[in-house]
């Protein structure tokens, strides 16, 4: 009888074991939808995919390309890349990751009309095939850019768009997204990560203060005292507040001067710093100034700036900018608009000045979206006869062509960053994480590198 009781107790305790696992409690600001390596496309979905999946390559904490599913790769003379897959990668059902799975994922993204628009753009013009067990990929884009973009495309198992080979297995609970550690070559150390949906920044703050969240971002507008259980981590981000001008470079020259001293430090807090250059310094660009000969409009003049309404901290910063403009006799009129309405006006070029937060992809080619004809950030119809040749010559970060492109832009800019954003998060002191411009999740090893302090 006693043995039976012991056995029953053991069975009961083993059933409870997952509940004892030391989970990392996190929050998501938006519903990411079901995990789908083909169709999923949002920042939250990228987090899910980076935990449950592996791309061919990863991005290290400094943004460099590092091995992930591919143990190695070789860039050939014609720009094609041949990847050698590692042999210890397994999908969630235990089957090995093969070249067939990689090719199926790439083909499915290009075939499925509902596939992630971002990934479809990455794969425009890409050819891929199995070459004696190697995955061979060629693109009209420079190989350096292709590698960085492939890092954002985790591989799904053939015919299973929701199944990846990542360091955590995924489970959807009624009001939570749960990831449990599994056997993986990155050797994840934390038992699991559980995300709850917390769209309200104050709710995140409340949950952090109550100890319900291990990691979280407090509201930007006022930083309350950090609880004794947490520490502050500040990460640079590839994110800026950008102003586009349809009125030429003149107004941008004024804004370039005002941004230096318009924003009081107590309004900026830890989340933002005045931008210095024209393109993000976090992507490796030097801080350059506008070199246009266009003269700014003479005071008194009216400048109309449209912005996204509803973000209190941003509105206060723009009010400070308005006051700075007033000192020089300019009337900077701030016109709020709902996010989607502003994007619509930008795309229809129905603005004089408009500003919005921009999150750049983690590679220098991301800035070409300002310059490319029809580029997603080319709202002013910017063009230059030398652009195509210079863009083709920028094959690797740091190539001389980048400097020439930068000069073209500096002489005739259509947009100017006002603020560089940083991510301020509170992390439980017992948890060791590695900050990165990509955030805590999107790099390699990402969450697989987290450790609980003993």
């Amino acid at each position, binding site marked *: 009888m006693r043995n039976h009781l012991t056995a029953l107790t053991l069975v009961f305790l083993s059933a409870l074991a997952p509940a004892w696992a030391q989970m990392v409690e996190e929050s998501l600001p938006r519903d990411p939808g079901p995990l789908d390596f083909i169709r999923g496309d949002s920042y939250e979905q990228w987090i899910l995919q980076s935990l449950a999946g592996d791309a061919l390559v990863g991005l290290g904490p400094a943004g460099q390309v590092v091995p992930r599913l591919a143990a190695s790769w070789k860039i050939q003379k014609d720009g094609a890349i041949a990847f050698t897959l590692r042999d210890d990668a397994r999908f969630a059902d235990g089957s090995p990751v093969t070249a067939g799975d990689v090719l199926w994922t790439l083909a499915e993204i290009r075939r499925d009309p509902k596939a992630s628009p971002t990934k479809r753009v990455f794969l425009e013009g890409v050819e891929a095939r199995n070459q004696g067990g190697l995955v061979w990929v060629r693109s009209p884009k420079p190989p350096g850019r292709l590698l960085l973009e492939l890092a954002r495309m985790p591989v799904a198992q053939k015919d299973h768009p929701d199944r990846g080979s990542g360091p955590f297995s995924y489970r959807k609970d009624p009001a939570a997204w749960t990831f449990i550690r599994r056997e993986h070559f990155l050797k994840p150390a934390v038992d699991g990560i559980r995300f709850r949906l917390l769209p309200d920044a104050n709710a995140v703050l409340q949950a952090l203060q*109550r100890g319900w969240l291990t990691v979280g971002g407090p509201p930007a507008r006022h930083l309350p005292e950090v609880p004794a259980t947490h520490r502050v981590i500040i990460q640079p981000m590839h994110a800026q507040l950008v102003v586009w001008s349809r009125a030429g470079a003149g107004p941008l020259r004024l804004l370039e001067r005002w941004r230096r001293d318009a924003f009081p430090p107590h309004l900026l807090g830890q989340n933002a710093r005045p931008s210095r250059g024209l393109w993000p310094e976090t992507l490796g660009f030097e801080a350059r100034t506008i070199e246009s000969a266009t003269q700014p409009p003479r005071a008194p003049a009216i400048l109309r700036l449209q912005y996204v309404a509803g973000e209190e901290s941003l509105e206060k910063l723009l009010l400070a900018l308005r006051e700075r403009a007033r000192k020089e006799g300019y009337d900077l009129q701030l016109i709020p608009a709902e996010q989607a309405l502003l994007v619509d006006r930008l795309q229809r070029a129905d603005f004089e000045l408009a500003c919005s937060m921009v999150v750049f992809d983690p590679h220098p080619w991301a800035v070409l979206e300002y310059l490319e004809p029809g580029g997603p950030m080319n709202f002013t119809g910017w063009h230059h006869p030398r652009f195509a040749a210079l863009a083709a010559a920028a094959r690797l970060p740091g190539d001389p062509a980048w400097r020439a492109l930068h000069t073209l832009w500096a002489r005739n800019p259509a947009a100017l960053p006002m603020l560089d954003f940083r991510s301020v998060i509170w992390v439980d002191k017992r948890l060791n994480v590695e900050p990165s411009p990509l955030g805590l999740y999107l790099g390699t090893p990402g969450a697989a590198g987290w450790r609980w302090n003993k």
Partner: protein
Amino acid sequence: MRPMVQGAAIWLVALVLAWSLPGALWRPIPPPPFPTHALLPAGLAVSILALAAPLLAWLGGPRLASRRSLALLEAPPDLLWAGALLACWPASWGPPGQVGWLVAFLAAALPGEVRWLSAALPGEMPFPVAWGPEVVRRARRLALARLTTRWLAARLPIWLTASLVLERLLGVPGLGMDWMDRVVGRDRVGLAAWVAALALLWLLSRPLDAEAVS
């Protein structure tokens, strides 16, 4: 017939507005999935409300509508109820979740609904009060039996869509958040489906109105 046409025209305009909502996204993203897991808690909340509010109105009668205590309970916005719940919720219990949402929802919605029903009850002085408590209870029951179905049809859309503040503060994904997410994400098809569902509810409640008029 005329009110029917007018109502249908208004719903049609709402449908056209949902379908042609202006605005665009940086990059087109798939619409959020419908929160099916929220249907059960929402159904439970609505059921409790549908039972508790008429019961309290039956017990309190029309005089309840002018009670100051009820007005005091009705006055605080959802935000305050959610904040109070979060402040009082013991940290060691973990996040309030669906249970907390249900408590805050009922605290926010019940007083208003009880007053809505009580105010709609017919006066009781001098009759049926003069005929005794038995008749008063019967009169209230009959009046509430007529009221309750139309009350449900009128208030259900509000309950289903206006719990956004509670959902955001308590971190419980639900129907209110879904509705708003579709506006933000410019999911015109999803929004039109919401409008069509609410229009259908209105349409189903029309025979009840006709009966009341006759």
